[in-house]
């Protein structure tokens, strides 16, 4: 089996898994998790890194806005 075939197989498996087994709640959690990761990445970016207290406050604020 070539690596491309393997990757395609795994990709198809993941897609099927996502479509079939991801509940609305999981989909929402995934979306929020990715938003928080982007926020975390920006807050830790070299040159514009925020303090820990600031990061925590902004994360709490971002989570409060989300309905999970």
């Amino acid at each position: 089996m070539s690596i491309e075939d393997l990757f395609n197989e795994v990709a198809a498996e993941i897609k099927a898994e996502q479509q079939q087994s991801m509940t609305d709640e999981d989909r929402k959690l995934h979306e929020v998790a990715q938003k928080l990761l982007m926020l975390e990445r920006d807050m830790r970016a070299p040159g514009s890194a925020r303090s820990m207290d600031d990061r925590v406050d902004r994360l709490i604020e971002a989570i409060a806005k989300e309905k999970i």
Partner: protein
Amino acid sequence: MFLRRLRVNNFRGFYGEHVIEFDPVDGKSVTVIHGENGAGKTNLLNAIFWCLTGAFTPRLSNPELLINKAAHDEDRESECFVELIFTHESHEYVARRTVVSRIESRFDLHTLDGETRKPIQKAQLFVERIIPKGLARWFFFDAEAIGELELSGSEQFRRELRRVLGFELVDALIEDLEKCLSKKQRGLATAVNSKELNEIQTKIENIEFILPSQREKEEDLDSELKQADAEVIKIENALRELPQSKPLQEQRSRLEARRKSRVATRKELQDQIARFIGEAAPAVLLAPLAIPFENQLYVKENTGRLPAPYSQQLVEDILRESMCICGRPVPDGSIEADKIQSLLRTASTTSFNARVRNIQYLLKDIQNISDDYDNSLSTFIKKLEENDTEIAEIDDELKAIKQKLAEIDEDSIRELEVKRTNLRAKARDIHSGLSILQNNITNNEAQVKDLRLRYDNASKRLGHGDAIKKEINKIKHLIEYITQTLHEQETRALVLLQVELNRILSRYLTKHFRAKINPKTYEVDLLDTQGRQVGRSTGEGQVLKFAFITTVVALAGKKTQEKINFLADPTVAPLVLDAPFSALDPEYQSSVAENLAAQSTQLILLLSSAAWGDAVANALSSRIGHRYVLISRQSGKRENKPVKTMKIDGKKINLNEYDCERDESVIQEL
């Protein structure tokens, strides 16, 4: 990141300006740069590396001499710089690093929009967002040093690999979310004025305050240990070079490898024993109660509720057929029918019978496990003792070797041995400090978990503070989800890595070796058919290392990342390799070349003519976009000196020239 063009000006051996294009040609994204030893291949690798990071690869000689000597002699004001044009996430950038003084450089970065250039502030930090510091060595690689790539699962290795794959950002988010949780929990404790919650939260915060510094210390100790180990290896290599100590050192290395494996076995056996005792202990404790309980089951059976003398089915059959088993009629609504109907209250059912059977089997299992406990435990203990005996024997042999080495009347050997002994003692101290620290970290983490549980239980008993509790639950939910997803992604990435490594090994190696990745430490082992470790420094081990690098880069690359569905973006960068095949057995060169080209998003190879055999040429020819040759020009007379040539596509090319205006390296496109 995708490299588009390199411009070097008066950099090292390159006089004046030279340009190399990397843009793909008809979708072919491999760039090959040919050059003999000393023609400037390593300088070109370092031009790219230095431009982006300000640092050099470890084996570059005289890194302080950056300005081309001839250019400097002609004009002391001559400018030396390296400029790279690259694209990243659909934007084009131009990075330029200029030599300011012998030890200083200036780095400028601009976005390119057609002809317009806009400067980027904090340029170096911007580039570090694309390729984090410390990860550049995974992408810009002095492949002659591939032997130094450690696959032994050190903390640094694991950390870098996780960073390449984007997992470290997820760790950072989880860490911050836990702080969010603490803040909210403290808020709840204050809002409801609960002494108990306040106390638990204070304990959590106290531990959380210590943990980061403990983890930091762990990283420091790990790198100190790595350094001490590397120094020991260096000394052992030196001992292997000396004829008198060579055989003894080789024997010692073999013994130490065996000892390492025995120590790992000891750990494995101890874990097995702990697991076995944990699983069997309840059965051993329950066994004395199981026999009377089983007897009780059979006693009850005789009183009627249990299987015999009749079942629900029998009673139902009599009533349905209105006929008793003795042949008498039982009409519906008769006194007999009512009497028989009442038997259903005590009749056994199929599911009831099944439950009783299950209890009987369970009791039997308890009895069997208990009976077998002593035997199984002594088998484990015997194995452990045999293993310990072997370790003790190896230690004796190692002691004898040390003694023999000490008896050799040779100052250099004695000196190396003393250094080695001191370093080993230092490494042992670090190791034991590290073990204690790791133990403390594990205990603290477990304590936080336990305290959080206590906090949960205490907060549930509170009748108010619902709004904050809701927010706390949201954060917990997110932590749980992200931790679980990260775990799944990491497992999947490691499975893919292992599958791919084994695909490459089975396809390219003549021997039936396989790779195994330890999911905890990320240690990569090469195993033979009997499951024994094969040295990573063997020819096959080198293939494994190349396969590992390319697979990681491919996994992190855009073309495969959706297969993992990463939460955070991995690092995507080109793979630039200097002298990739020189460390490989010729039989593996073409397969490694083929694999490198197939797996990487962009590949730049710096090759000598010796590494460009027919097999490598065949493996790469259909994938090459641009191709260059480095020509070494000398100002001196030729006299009897040779002119090296190489044939590319049937055309003979001279790789060095004499009687030139100056000593320099020249880049020519083919």
